[in-house]
Structure formats: C-alpha cells, structure tokens
C-alpha cells in the first residue's frame, strides 16, 4: 500500500517537474523576450536584438540569458521599515500557487499526460489560484510604501471581484459537459455537432468564452486591467520596492498566470488536446503517435492563446480603476448569470 503511494507520488513529481520547469517556466522565460519583441514589432520598432554570443545574435534570444544574469547580479534590496520576512516571502507566496495549478491540467489524452487527474479539477485551479492574491497583497503591505499599498488594495479588490465572474462563466460549460473534471470536459469536446462542427466550448458557450477571456485577463492583472501596477499613478504597484531576482519572480509569476489562462481557455473552450475532426477512438488513443500529436495540439493551442493575450496587451489601453470595477460587477457578472440561466433553460428544454 505505502509502496503504491510512494510510487504514485514519485510519478506525479516527475511529471510535474517535466511540465512546470520544462514547459511553463521555459515558456515564461521565453515570453519575457517575446513580449518585448512583439510589442516592438507592433509599434514599428526593432526591439531587443543586440545580445550576442560570439557575434551570433539569434534575433536577440540571448537577451533572456542576459536579463537573468542581470537580475541575479542586482542587489536584493529590502526597504527600511518593511517587514523583512514577509517582504521576502511574498513573491514565493504568489509564485507557488501560480505554478501548482498546472498539476491538474491534462495535456494529453490519457492519465499519463496529467500530473493529477483530480475530479474537482477546475475548482482546484480556482481554489489554489486565488491564493496568489495573498502574495500580491502581502507584498504591497510589507513594502512600507504607499504606492505599493495602493497597488495591493487594487489587486485584492480586482482579483476577488473577477474571481466571481470567472467561476460563473465556466458554470455554463460545466452544465453542458456535466463535469468539473478537466479531462472529462476535454473528452466531451471530441464529439461533432451535427457531424460538422467540433463540439468545442466556444461553439456551445460563445458568450462565456469572451467573458472568460476578459475576466481571466483581469485575474492576471495585465493590460487593459493592469491598474494595480499602473505606472503613471503607482510607479509599479505592489512590486514597486522589489529588485533583483525577487522582481524577476514577480515577472515569472505573471507569465505563469498568462500561460495558465491560455491553458484554461484551451482546455475548456478550444477542445484541449483534441485534434479537430479526428475523434479519439480507444484504438487511436492507445497508439503513442496519436498521444504525442494530441499533446502537440494542446501546446499549439496554448501558444496561440498566449499570443492572443500578448497581442491584446499591446492593443488596448489601460482602463481606469473604477471602470474595471464597473465592468466586473455591472456587466460581466450579470451577463454570466444570464448565460447560466439561458444554458440551464436550453438544457432543460432539449432534454
């Protein structure tokens, strides 16, 4: 019995170690470069392309190494009057939940491709993900800086507000697929509607998808919802006082959250690892090449949504703080409630 538990734990640890540092953190590091290069291209600039190793520039990819080195060599300043313990702990309190949530994400068709196939899948993501608000709040409070504190207030208000609508948006999807287990939801999206359209979440719940995108970007605190770190009024918001690797940790947390949103959008609304018009029959699922293809499809969709979020960030303007709150409570929340109602009625009538 204990041997089995230990074996399961070891397997989970290995899978987590492959998924999180191997994919999520690597992609997050890459995103620090993509973000700047993409924004440059959008704004008709060139962007960072100078870092080179022996004259090889590789489109500026070595900026990732250069930036990491620079962050690592900077002093980790703890401001006077701050709470040193909490100040140092806060980035990790934000980062740990942002990384743990990947444990329930099924990236492939069988249980082999998910770290832990929890039945409460999405609830786990919400439960753990909402913990990262503590990290941001504590960071702002322990910095002994009024800008940080204001940023922290905004973070906590914004994240808690949008968590409500975020969860409500997905209720419609849960009702359609009859489960909150992510693997079951993805398997449910393999069917074809009327023989032509894949029964993806976006097809059966289009309203929910667009509201989900807005609410989840608000959760990750990125433009147009980045009032918590609004540079013109709050310097840098709740991480104003951070420097060195602690600051890098905040960036990594943000990028991990972006990847998580992309994965959620993929899994719930875009068929997860499903390849469109290729229904996963048990015989197909048993073959290794199909599994690999599915994982590839999942990561490709994830990358697409990462790109969409980046593109949105450099397209839209920052919203005013009261506008963010108005939008969350007065528009997104009622519409998602209505969406749940309409979905319920529809399911009841077509049963």
């Amino acid at each position: 019995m204990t041997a089995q538990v230990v074996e399961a734990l070891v397997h989970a640890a290995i899978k987590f170690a492959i998924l999180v540092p191997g994919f999520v953190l690597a992609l997050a590091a890459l995103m620090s470069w993509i973000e700047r290069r993409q924004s440059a291209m959008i704004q008709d600039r060139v962007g960072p392309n100078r870092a080179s190793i022996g004259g090889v520039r590789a489109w500026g990819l070595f900026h990732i190494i250069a930036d990491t080195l620079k962050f690592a060599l900077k002093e980790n300043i703890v401001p006077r009057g701050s709470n040193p313990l909490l100040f140092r702990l806060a980035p990790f309190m934000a980062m740990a939940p942002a990384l743990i949530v990947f444990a329930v994400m099924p990236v492939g068709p069988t249980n082999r491709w998910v770290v832990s196939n929890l039945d409460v899948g999405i609830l786990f993501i919400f439960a753990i993900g909402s913990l990262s608000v503590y990290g941001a709040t504590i960071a702002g409070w322990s910095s002994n800086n009024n800008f940080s504190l204001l940023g922290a207030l905004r973070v906590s208000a914004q994240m808690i507000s949008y968590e409500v609508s975020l969860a409500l948006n997905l209720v419609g999807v849960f009702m359609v697929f009859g489960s909150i287990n992510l693997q079951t939801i993805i398997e449910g999206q393999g069917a074809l509607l009327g023989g032509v359209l894949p029964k993806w979440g976006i097809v059966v719940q289009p309203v929910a998808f667009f509201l989900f995108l807005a609410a989840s970007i608000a959760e990750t605190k990125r433009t147009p919802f980045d009032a918590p770190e609004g540079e013109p009024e709050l310097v840098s918001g709740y991480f104003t006082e951070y420097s060195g690797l602690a600051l890098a940790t905040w960036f990594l947390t943000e990028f991990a959250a972006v990847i998580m949103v992309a994965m959620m959008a993929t899994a719930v609304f875009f068929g997860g690892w499903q390849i469109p018009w290729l229904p996963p029959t048990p015989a197909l699922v048993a073959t290794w090449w199909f599994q690999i293809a599915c994982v590839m499809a999942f990561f490709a969709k994830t990358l697409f949504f990462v790109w969409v979020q980046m593109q949105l960030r450099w397209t839209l303007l920052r919203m005013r703080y009261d506008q963010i709150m108005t939008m969350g409570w007065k528009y997104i929340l009622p519409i998602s409630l209505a969406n749940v109602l309409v979905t319920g009625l529809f399911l009841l009538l077509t049963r």
Partner: protein
Amino acid sequence: MKQPLRPKSERAKPFERREMTFAEKLFYPAIWEGLKVTTKHLVENIFGRKHTVTLEYPEVQRPYPERFRGQHRLMQRDDGSPRCVACMCCSTACPSNCITIVAGERPEETIEKFPMRFEIDLLKCIYCGMCVEACPCDAIRMDSGVHPKPTYNRQAAIIDKEGLLAAGAKTIATQGGTFGSRVAGHLKKHI
C-alpha cells in the same frame, strides 16, 4: 488690450458627445478592429520590416550632411608646412577660448609668423565653426567629417599641431580663401 472675439465660423466647435450604440458598448467589435491593426503591423514587420524605420546605428550609419562640422584639421602648404600664419584670428573669434596658439618667427619676408604651438581643446570646443570663418588663409577647416571621439582622460581630448596637421591636407585655395578673393574681385569691379 482686449482681443476681439473671432467670428463665430472660425471659433472651435465644442465636441458633440453622443450615446454609444449597443455595439460600441460591447467593446468587443472595437477590440477586434484594434487587433486587426496591431496584427497587421506585427506580421508585416516580422516578414520584411515594412513599417520599421529604425537605423541600427553602429552597423548602419546615416551619412553626415555636407556642411557637418567635424573635428578640426590644419591645412598644409605645398612643402607640408602649416598654412597658418598665427594671426590669432581664430583664437580671438573662438567663443569658448579653446584655441591656444604660440607664434614663432619665420625668416621669410612675405610670411612673418608661423604657429609653434597650435592646440585645440575639444572638450571646450562647441563646434560653432567661428574659427573657420575667421581664418584668412583657409588654414583651419572642420570638414574632416570625423565625429569627435570620447577619450579616457582630458589630456587626450586636446589635439596638438602635429595631430591637426596630420589630419589636414594640401589645399589649392589661394591665400585668403577662394571666397575672399571672389569678393575682392567683385568689389573691385564696382568701385
């Protein structure tokens, strides 16, 4: 004095605000339009740098304009000696007092003086070109096209006569400069 009001037709019109339509209130159509613009720029700039106008400086350099005032040089006579007659016109004209000239005597009759020392402190120089304008012999020029380089110490920014002459070359201009002789001829015609 009170300014008279402009006629009504010329005054700025107040901006008329109107209610947003339902489609506008949704924001999503507008966001879609915005995404189309940014994506167009992204794709066109990745494949072909269509809109990017950045000059990547050290590799690509914009040519200096013809009249760019660069580092000074001292012109030479046919025998390689400086054309400068140490008249001090340039150091007098120089607004930042950065030209140091120590004159020496020449045995010839026509040209009595020559510069024993001729130094320009490039840290003080403001590259105004007054020295070139003042020189009656076309001895000092700023047409080298050399952008002044940074140095590791202040002493290195002072260029001496040898350095200035090395950068210079023989000039075919007549004493007093071509422009000066042209003006003189012009004046003569009219007197």
